[in-house]
């Protein structure tokens, strides 16, 4: 980088996602929408049985208690876009860095596949392309042209659908407007049937995401590690209460 560029005078949004666990049902619609939007390959049964998965968002299911007072907690987890991301300092080629909008960027053509970032991530949300992804024809027709199709040896993860953010920013600039709250929706947010996912600008105190982030139910994952994630969870109600 030639110069040390200061943050721009143009107000940069600070993107965040709010996950309302009281609404989330665990239906996996977000998982598939993400696959469709981001050209994520399928690993196949053999690799899946070996323990491999390539999802950028997963629904983690935790059991608590014993029958009949057993609860299952379902929690969608994607890249937390940590402000103090442990994955960023360890990349030897600076393929991952923090951008002014608050996103943890992953630049595929710079990545050389050392996988240090995947080890450093405490949430384990980074996936590695161990093999060349296969899209048997004509499934190639369904690939999204706005997103790189990654090859073997590249690390990938949730990007908050940067392609949608960029597209929306370009469109409003062309029209001479500002981005409205809720105009940018990552694929998972757009499809979520119970509307459990909300995406927005934390620099705008009136955005839905900002308002929800101020809820008394809010918490962040592994907060004690100091990663300062940009994903805020809202605690769900108690399920299957005995009595």
């Amino acid at each position, binding site marked *: 980088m030639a110069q040390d560029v200061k943050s721009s005078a143009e107000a940069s949004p600070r993107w965040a996602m709010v996950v309302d666990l009281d609404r989330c049902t665990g239906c996996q619609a977000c998982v598939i929408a993400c696959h469709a939007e981001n050209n994520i390959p*399928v690993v196949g049964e053999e690799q899946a049985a070996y323990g491999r998965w390539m999802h950028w968002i997963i629904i983690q299911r935790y059991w608590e208690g014993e*029958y009949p007072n057993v609860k299952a*907690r379902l929690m969608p987890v994607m890249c937390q876009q940590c402000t103090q991301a442990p994955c960023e300092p360890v990349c030897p080629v600076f393929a991952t860095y923090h951008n002014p909008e608050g996103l943890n960027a992953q630049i595929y053509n710079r990545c050389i596949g050392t996988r240090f970032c995947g080890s450093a991530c405490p949430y384990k949300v980074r996936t590695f392309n161990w093999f060349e992804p296969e899209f048997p024809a004509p499934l190639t027709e369904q690939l999204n042209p706005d997103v790189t199709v990654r090859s073997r040896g590249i690390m990938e993860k949730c990007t908050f659908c940067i392609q949608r953010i960029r597209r929306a920013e370009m469109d409003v600039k062309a029209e001479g407007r500002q981005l409205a709250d809720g105009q940018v929706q990552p694929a998972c947010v757009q499809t979520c049937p119970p509307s459990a996912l909300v995406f927005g600008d934390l620099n705008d105190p009136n955005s839905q995401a900002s308002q929800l982030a101020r809820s008394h139910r809010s918490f962040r994952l592994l907060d004690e590690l100091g990663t300062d994630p940009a994903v805020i969870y809202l605690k769900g109600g108690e399920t299957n209460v005995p009595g």
Partner: protein
Amino acid sequence: MKRLSRRDFLKTAAVAGVGVFTGIAPTVRRVALEPFVRPPEEELPGRATWFASTCRQCPAGCGILVRVINGRARKIEGNPAHPLNRGKLCARGQTGLQVLYNPDRLKNAVRQTGGREPRQFKPIQWTEALDQLVSTLNGLADRSRVAFLGGLVPDHLVALVSSFLKALGAPPPVLFDLHTTLEGRAEAADLARRWFGKPQGQVQGFPLPMYDIARAQVIFSFGANLLETWMSPVSQSYDYGLMRQGQAGGRGFLAQFEPRLSMTAASADKWIPVEPGTEGLIALGLGRIIVEDNLGHVGSHRDHAYLYRNVSVSDIAQASGVSIETLRKLANVFADADRSVAIPGGYLAGLSNGAQTMDTVMALNVVMRRLGREGGVFLPHQVPAEQFTSSASISPFSEAQSLIERMKAGQVDVLFIHSTNPVYELPGWAGFVEALDKVRLVVSFSSFMDETAIWADLVLPDHTYLEGWGYQGVSPGADRPAVSGQQPVVRPLYDTRSTADVVLALAARLGGQVAQALPWSDEVAFLEQSSTQLLGTSSGIYDARTPDGFWSRWRQHGGWWTEKPLRDEPEVSGMPTGPLQVSPAAFVGDPQQYPFHLALYPSLALTDGRGANQPWLQEMPDPMTTGRWNTWVELNPVTARSLGVHDNDVVKVISPQGELEAAVVVYPGIRPDAVAIPVGQGHSDYGRFAERRGSNPLSLVAPLLGQAPGLPLQWAATRVRVEGTGRRQELARLESLDGAGREKLR
């Protein structure tokens, strides 16, 4: 490796160095650029065009918007304006692209040579196929010997086929598939007809009741997996989100009554693990307590007291295993709320006392005066055009059985099959494959070579839904009358043909009465005319001055619905005359030999197996077990311990009818006397992603001896036993079986 000499090293370095220099050119595939010959009006190269259509991955009929770039469908989203799904879409809906671009699609019409089943298919021209059909139909001595077996057939095709068959003098189409069976759709329609139908109303086909989940304070779901596959899961999930965090009066309360903790129950505030078959007793008990203690704020229950005359709560507590105290608490919760609703679910229809159970659940709504009230029970308001009157034209199992009987008796000469896979979906003892032997000509319209298509003489593949036209009544309804429109978002990829066009072409060539009954030149002409029946209706979201204009708007919006919400209040016309009763459920298998109840459930990804050829759905982790790509057996930890099996041990599940082997998933959320197996795998055909994977648990379902004719398929009435095999299988799971917290489950 031999020691590298200095000379070799220098040579290699030099070559590598040269390679580095010459390889500096940008990594670009050499492609040619092809301009349009005649540019389409609406295309801006590099930008997407969006088309409104309808999803056909399940019977709900959600509205979709499809992002099309350069003639290729890239992404499916929910249509925000559509009243059913309001912009949201489930995992199956998102996977529609993999139906369109599936590598195992049939690319042309084929004829089976060398008899049925050896899978020797020869491509034929469509003209040849039509010629064969016309000559067969003309050559029939009796044209009533034609039958049509469909499953998830779009409503416009049902209308055309029904007219076609009627004009031939043949019986109406039989619409039966496993998904609607597992949802209990036919039985739900019967329930609505029994309670709310006018005495002189139709016997078959009645709109499905709608439950206002969004505004309910208390929901008692008797096995209805609202958030998964039952009825309209996207709409119900949307409403669930509102029920939780979108209501002014505070969070709603959901209680789920079922033997296995489903994904819906995982989100419930209370899961009551009922013994299979006693759901109706619980509903009776609740009703009795409400009436006896005069609970609730709806006035006196004196008029309904007779319904619960013969109910003894202590007997019920004993039979169901739910304590009197719990029953009392639940009854109070239900009655105290101003807006509460009881929902009878799909698996109830699989029990021998299903109809009675569903009655007792609906009775709770009646007693608590929930009909037509916010948070209660509604019926959809009919679309103001006869063409689109919403009625669930689903055939019960008994009709499928009588079709099979007719086939066996040699009374069916020509059988058409569309959107259903009976060889896979029906249990073997239903006798479908054997009955096919007696049918002269079997024609399948399947887009894929599935287990049924390999038994056909002719396979005339229909377009997949993203390439096709149509309309679909929204059922169960949205909060307003709606018809969902379907239009092609891309040109058909292969030499497939719309089945509606085939039927219309047949009709034209057969001439006479048949041609008169179906006077349209093609499917689009039929749809255009149908749509304009709503021209001039002031209540719609749009209107137009000409039929052309109306048809344009119809396609642009993706259908028609009213501007304002409009639902009907159900009026009870079929009040039971005497006390309610629920017979004890009958099960197949002696409890000594077969100690466990078999709880089958439609897999969230694959439902009844139709999703098995789509790799995203196969890879999608099941939310509760995180299992994928295969079949598994869910055992309670106590059960697993007593059998001496752990996760990934292979067990054999044996029923009086059959057996299957699958890996164990130790599952805390199931009764110790039940085992659960998801439906959907075990295909022998249907493409590379579906074939030779897992097992089809329908093979375990046993016929109920002495089952009176006319009863639903009792798929929840089989008992099984489980035996270890000593083998292990690595089941593909998202979760890891290592790590803290797993000790309890071993």
